[in-house]
């Protein structure tokens, strides 16, 4: 085997080895890498006990309620299979609105409601001018969220 062949083989071996390590390493710690749980996972009991976690999904249309003269709000987060009710006291991000994605950090209370300490808006991958969005509203948008 020539030295060049040898080095070529060592580069390939290195790449295969590191890729395998990455695949197994990343598979091993699935919970760490998902930034949030969706309502189906939460309802199925993916989160144990009293620990803090992030809940992500869509704010259900028509579910947003604000207690007058306060920062207390509640809304429902859905993944179109399951729903979780969220209670929050604080400032909402500008892009927070019904029908848009949201990621909330907090804990479940004894009634299975999610008490959020922090709320982030999740923007989806659709970018369009307002006129296009208006015309899309006429027909229900396709979504695989």
């Amino acid at each position, binding site marked *: 085997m020539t030295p*060049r062949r040898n*080095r*070529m083989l060592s*580069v390939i071996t*290195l*790449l295969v080895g*590191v*890729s395998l390590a*990455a695949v197994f390493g*990343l598979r091993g710690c*699935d919970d760490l*890498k*998902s*930034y*949030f*749980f*969706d309502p189906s996972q939460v309802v199925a009991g993916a989160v144990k006990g009293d620990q803090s976690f992030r809940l*992500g999904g869509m704010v259900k249309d028509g579910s947003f309620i604000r207690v007058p003269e306060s920062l207390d709000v509640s809304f429902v987060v859905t993944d179109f299979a399951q729903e979780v009710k969220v209670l929050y006291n604080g400032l*909402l*991000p*500008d*892009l*927070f609105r019904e029908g*848009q994605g949201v*990621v909330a950090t907090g804990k479940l209370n004894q009634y299975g409601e999610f008490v959020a300490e922090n*709320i*982030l*808006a*999740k*923007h*989806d*991958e*659709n*970018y*369009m*001018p*307002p*006129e*296009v*969005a*208006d015309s899309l509203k006429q027909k229900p948008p396709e979504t695989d969220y």
Partner: protein
Amino acid sequence: MNAFMTWFYQMSSPPHFYRWAGRAIPWFMWPALILSAVAAYLGLVRSPEDYQMGHTVRIMYVHVPSAWLSMWCYTSMAVASAIGWIWRMKLAHAVAAAIAPAGAALTFLALVTGAIWGKPTWGTYWVWDARLTSELVLLFLFMGVVLLRNAFEDRAQGDRAAAILAIVGVVNVPIIHYSVNWWNTLHQSASVSVAGKSGIDSSMLMPLLLMVLGFTLYLVALILMRTRNEVLLRESRKRWVQELVQS
């Protein structure tokens, strides 16, 4: 294939590369400047606001090209390093050395513009989700490659050490790309699709693609310029460089 191999072997000669690159740079630089200026005008002035984000969407015209090209830079650097390692080609190591700081700068730009966009859109500058974290790892890899190369007295040793790090780190590139599909992330999934329908309106897609093209050409010109400097430094004791300096 034969013509390509001839070109490849000619290019491995530093003086030949130096002259060729000197002629090629304007052919990349001028189109890059014109395209970027046109794309900046279209993106920052003419393109519409987004229905959700308003004017904030315009950060995309810098963020997306930087992020894409940061991954392109890393992949090119890894390929150049592998060529340099396998064929013992000094010019390939010089190319890899020239790419690394440019790639680090693009990664930094992608992270900073992303943070500036994240604050008004998400409500936070930074989260440790898979996409953001893997892009930060890319920045550290670029910095590691630069530092490792300079950590050796002997240039050839530094080149080889940096090459190995560059090749090992290339596994991070598919992780960055697919992170938004494999795991739940705060970062949205890809808007621009080659095969299917893009999630971005054509009035915004056109300036974006022009900007990507402008950035790419500029980057090629920049890498050629930086490689020329790198070649001069590395060959400073050779006769062709001495003659070049004296003439």
